[in-house]
């Protein structure tokens, strides 16, 4: 046993010495490989934590949101739809809501303006999301203006929403219903959507079916659908994950392609020397195995650790421009680190295994050449 360990230590000694001979090339390789692992691990950690968090906090979303569709578009819903719904078994409350979007051309920001009925706000008071306050530099007591219908409406900032909740509230503007109607011109008796509370979650689907029967022009959005949407928000098949996977795969193909045509004359000569001075074919394969392990394991560890710091300690700063797109408002949030062991194990396997195989395979043939080749 001790002999086995010593032997491996010697092989690692040799492998590292021989890797260090081409510092530039091998550190470059390690850097690129680390970068790929870093990107993949960042996406994995980010999306998993985001999904987990969305799953926890959106559990409190309304059970059913009822929208009215006109010509395929979300349209205003008249208040009398509440009466038209009639009594639905299991529904404990029905609430019409007023909300919409507002674009501020000065700061080029999109706000989500809401008129909640549980808050007591005068017509000149506003509560804003922390992202808006940060972006335009507002504090409590300052004035916040919305320009609409050739008019400017000024509100005094009554409060700023909790900055720990930016992930859901960064762009929110809360004003009174009266002010909302004046600004948007939505007449009395019209609302944006209707929210239903259902006591028993098993009845939700039935309620939704009945609703569509009674009012064919409405579309109910269920909480379980919201949750499912966020559970699959970054599916591997689509979008950024897919792009990254393809990038990683391509990079790996390039590695493999670089190695596949076989070894350089120098490498072959070295294997010949090692065999001539008493190394077995197995020793040479083991040495190459260690070479693969050293590079890929280092890349995995460094990439994963960097990704952890990036996602949870720098708020995934590299993803910000991607998610932000053309918007100017972006939430500042620290994700709660949820780690999926299986995901990390998968990444570990796909970092180490193919690389080690790709390192060993081309050496296979060279390692069984006659040791006297070096004398000829």
């Amino acid at each position, binding site marked *: 046993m001790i002999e086995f360990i010593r032997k491996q*230590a*010697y092989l690692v*000694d040799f492998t*590292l*010495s021989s890797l*260090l001979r081409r510092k530039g090339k091998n550190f470059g390789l390690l850097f690129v490989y680390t970068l790929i692992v870093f990107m993949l691990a960042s996406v994995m950690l980010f999306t998993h934590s985001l999904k987990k968090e*969305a799953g*926890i*906090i*959106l559990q*409190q979303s*309304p059970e059913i949101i009822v*929208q009215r*569709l006109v010509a*395929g*578009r*979300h349209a205003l819903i008249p208040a009398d739809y509440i009466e038209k719904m009639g009594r639905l078994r299991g529904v404990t409350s029905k609430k019409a809501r007023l909300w919409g*979007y507002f674009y501020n051309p000065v700061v080029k920001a*999109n706000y*989500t303006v*809401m008129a*909640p009925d549980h808050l007591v706000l005068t017509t000149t008071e506003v509560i804003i999301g922390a992202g808006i306050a940060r972006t335009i530099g507002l504090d409590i007591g300052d004035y916040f203006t919305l320009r609409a219908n050739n008019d400017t409406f000024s509100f005094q900032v009554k409060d700023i929403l*909790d900055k*720990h*909740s*930016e*992930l*859901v*509230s960064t*762009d*929110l503007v809360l004003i009174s219903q009266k002010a909302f109607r004046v600004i948007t011109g939505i007449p009395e008796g019209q609302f944006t959507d209707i929210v239903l509370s259902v006591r028993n979650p098993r009845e939700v689907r039935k309620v939704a079916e009945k609703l569509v029967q009674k009012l064919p022009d409405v579309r109910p*959005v*269920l909480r379980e*659908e*919201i949750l499912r*949407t*966020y559970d*699959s*928000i*970054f*599916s591997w098949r689509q979008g950024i994950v897919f792009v990254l996977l393809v990038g990683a795969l391509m990079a790996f193909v390039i590695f493999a392609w670089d190695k596949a045509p076989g070894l350089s004359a120098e490498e072959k000569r070295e294997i010949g020397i090692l065999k001539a001075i008493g190394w077995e074919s197995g020793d040479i394969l083991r040495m190459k195995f260690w070479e693969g392990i050293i590079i890929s*394991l280092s890349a995995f*560890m*460094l990439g*994963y*650790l960097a990704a952890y710091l990036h996602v*949870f300690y720098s708020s995934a700063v590299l993803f910000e421009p*991607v*998610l*932000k*797109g*053309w*918007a*100017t408002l*972006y*939430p500042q949030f620290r994700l*709660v*680190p*949820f*780690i999926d062991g299986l995901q990390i194990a998968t990444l570990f396997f796909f970092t180490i295994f193919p690389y080690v195989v790709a390192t060993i395979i081309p050496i296979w043939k060279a390692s069984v050449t006659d040791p006297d080749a070096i004398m000829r």
Partner: protein
Amino acid sequence: MRNSSLFLLFLVAGLLFILMTVMDAVSQQDMARESLKRRATLVSELGLSDLALSTEARYTRHLSLADRHSAFQDHPTSFDHFPSGSIFLPPLHLAND
């Protein structure tokens, strides 16, 4: 110092750091319980349905409320011209039926 000892040291340090990330994650989850609760309360009070990750387009701001046509804005064949539209999957209930 031997190369193999250096590598072993590096390996152990790396494993230790990885272990530390797990412990860090657990402790942060513990500490975040309060703020998660606060976020959940805000969601329930305002009836929020989505994360405010992207504010550029209504179909990515309120992903789960998007309808089949919102990504096409004003014409059925116009291009999706918001970058975030290429990142998020459309809501599943639209994709499935």
